[in-house]
């Protein structure tokens, strides 16, 4: 068997067409890779910054404390219509009466 004959035989070995979904599969795998890489990068960055995590936790606690204090400092913001203790009591009494009567209707 000479070289030409061998070449002729070898050249008869054809490959099937590239499957059309190969590119789609590759691009999906690449996107997955990019996503996981970005996720990993963020996780790694976050776990490497202990000081920053402490600083952020402290900031959140401080913010919550400041908010609570500011709410306590301005109670009139929550009931602006009540101006005196008597009015507050009156309002409470009328509210209670309404509640009691409505309970009565519902129950019987």
């Amino acid at each position, binding site marked *: *068997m000479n*070289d030409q004959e061998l070449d002729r*035989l*070898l050249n008869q*070995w054809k*490959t*099937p067409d590239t499957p059309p979904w*190969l590119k789609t599969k590759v691009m999906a795998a*690449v996107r997955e890779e990019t996503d996981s890489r970005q996720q990993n990068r963020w996780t790694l960055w976050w776990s490497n910054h202990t000081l920053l995590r402490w600083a952020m936790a402290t900031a959140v606690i401080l913010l919550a404390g400041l908010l609570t204090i500011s709410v306590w400092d301005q109670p009139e913001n929550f009931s602006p219509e009540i101006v005196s203790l008597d009015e507050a009591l009156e309002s409470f009494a009328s509210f209670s009466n309404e509640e009691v009567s409505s309970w009565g209707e519902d129950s019987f």
Partner: protein
Amino acid sequence: MTEGSAINDAELMSQTAAGDDSAFEVLVERYQGIVYGTCYRMLGSYHAEAQDVAQMVFVRVYKAAGSYRPAAQYKTWLMTITRNCVFTHLKKMKRMHEKRVYPVVDEETDQEVDYLDDSITTATENLQEKELMQVLQRAIEQLPEQQRMALILRQYEQMDYEQIARTLKTSVASVKSLIFRARDTLRSAVKAHKKN
């Protein structure tokens, strides 16, 4: 591959490294045939495996986009990655002791497939050629991996000796020797079959 398209490949790779997925898509489109064909022939005509390995090759290319230097011709660089993926896969297969069975069966139709050239006319000729092709394919499959890869890159991808040497990380003289020995083995296998 022309010089122009080589420059273009390098540009596309730098765009890919910068995060442009559409540039990478163009590269996949351009080279999927070569990568898939090489995987298919190296892995003994198995579609599913060839697809998986071809996919693995492109994912690796994508991951390594940042480290690509245009000094190396893109096709050579790509074929080096293909070679690494194929050899890794073959090692895995060896560990699993999987045996190849011919002929090839189409996964969708479950029918026997042969990828012989259509130019063969008569039925007897076709049968003889088919038999010879099977002998040849088995002989190719039994070649050492480096010889097989060198032969496939030269015969089917028309790569020159220097490109093959770079892909296989060896010398040009060694590539010539690998191809010579591979062809010699194939010739002997066909001769032995004809005698029988």
